[in-house]
């Protein structure tokens, strides 16, 4: 996000403090001083990661209270990736519906899908890559997949390293 603040000592700290207050993680701070000296306003760009979708409004409110104005909120990046394999009657149980249930969350999406169907009526296997904005969203997406798998009688193979 791009922030605008008064060029006074302590202002940057005032802007960064709310981020940790909502449990966010600062990835980069880009500080620009090339603005016109007369404006006495500082432009700062911050790349950050939030624990969950809901933290953003809270953060904006806290920043406003600190007298920091948010000029622009950039694109949300899908930082987290997780690859799982599923086995079962994937087509009979509507694979696109399975994918939809994750995509409709809005904060996680299936970005890659490889399907192997050996023969009609025998179980097929698919590798699914999910990306999400936060770890919490990833956990949610994987839980959705687990629930769908239980309903549709599919086997889910999760990665060894935690999600």
């Amino acid at each position, binding site marked *: 996000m791009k922030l605008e603040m008064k060029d006074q000592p302590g202002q940057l700290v005032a802007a960064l403090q709310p981020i940790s207050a909502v449990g966010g993680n600062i990835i980069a701070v880009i500080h620009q001083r090339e603005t016109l000296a007369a404006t006495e306003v500082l432009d700062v760009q911050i790349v950050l990661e939030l624990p969950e979708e809901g933290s953003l409004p809270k953060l904006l409110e806290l920043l406003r209270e600190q007298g920091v104005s948010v000029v622009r909120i950039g694109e949300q990046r899908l930082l987290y990736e997780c*690859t*799982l*394999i599923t*086995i*079962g009657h994937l087509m009979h149980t509507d694979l696109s519906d399975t994918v939809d249930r994750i995509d409709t969350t809005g904060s996680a999406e299936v970005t890659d899908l*490889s399907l*192997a169907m*050996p023969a009609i009526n025998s*179980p*097929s*296997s*698919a*590798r699914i890559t999910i990306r999400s904005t936060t770890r919490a969203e990833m956990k949610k997406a994987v839980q959705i997949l687990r629930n769908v798998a239980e309903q549709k009688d599919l*086997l889910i*193979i*999760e*990665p*060894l390293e935690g999600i």
Partner: protein
Amino acid sequence: MRIAILGFGSVGRGIARAILAKNLDITVTGLADSKGGVIDPAGIDLAAALDRKGNGGPCGSPDVTPSDVVAKAEYDVLVEVTPTDVDDGEPALGYIRAALGRSKHVVTSNKGPIALAYPELRDLAVANGVFLRYEATVCGAIPLIHAMQEGLAGNTISRLYGVFNGTCNYILTRMAEDSLTYEQALAEARELGYAEADPTYDVEGIDAAIKLVILANTILDMRTTLDDVERTGITLLTPEALRLAEDQDCTIRLIGEVVPEAGVLRVSPRIVSKAHPLVVEGTLNAVTVGTDLAGDLTFIGKGAGSTETASAVIGDLLYIRDRHVQGS
């Protein structure tokens, strides 16, 4: 040191052969299989007993029962290596109780009694001033329990995970290597003697789950039963799934995992990077222990086999001898 051996199958005979082959200063004064037994305070002729068994006969006389050996033979340590029963642990549980009650140390490779009744047996051992050791119950030759109890004493174990079943590991290795179906790989494992006629216990993850229960209850201060383990076996895996993993430099292994803090106890097929130390080939076992002081340690070795399992039993016997047994 004098020992009595109950069970003269793969493990029991492995122990006898090691005693014969090496100068371990161990005398066997009692021996029994399902059909009979021998008691001889002067020491049983193990070579002759192995011969009788090799010719399809019983190891002793039908007049001497395993319970006679437990109750009447003169020994310092009972070596209990009869078949595992995961429902009630019998008849091994009764033999172990009786020996501890006689103030005899016990060494066992039998998962049933340890998984089902460890707290009771440990208390009984303590009350009688004797040792109860069970290194061979988990991962055969790998001295995992010794390592965690002694070598890693003082560490807090945050996570323990790995390949606890050699049969499943063999099947998955073969499915990945040569694109065999599950059924083909299982048939091959049976032919090589790596899988039982009824492979349920291995392929459904029950064997791995029992080992997790043993580690959880005896090392990690948890109170769990087999029903607490979330368990998925390998029977539904396809060669295509293994290839999809392979495409990303990964493979699939049956992983048992305990995370004490989070109460996680599960056995399930997992996607693992091929560069991970737990990715071992064939029937090997591998376990990673995550600790606070020592960091992560990975143990790799043979999880079964006559001599390999005997190695764990003998390690326990000598541990007891060095600390306790007098007058042998």
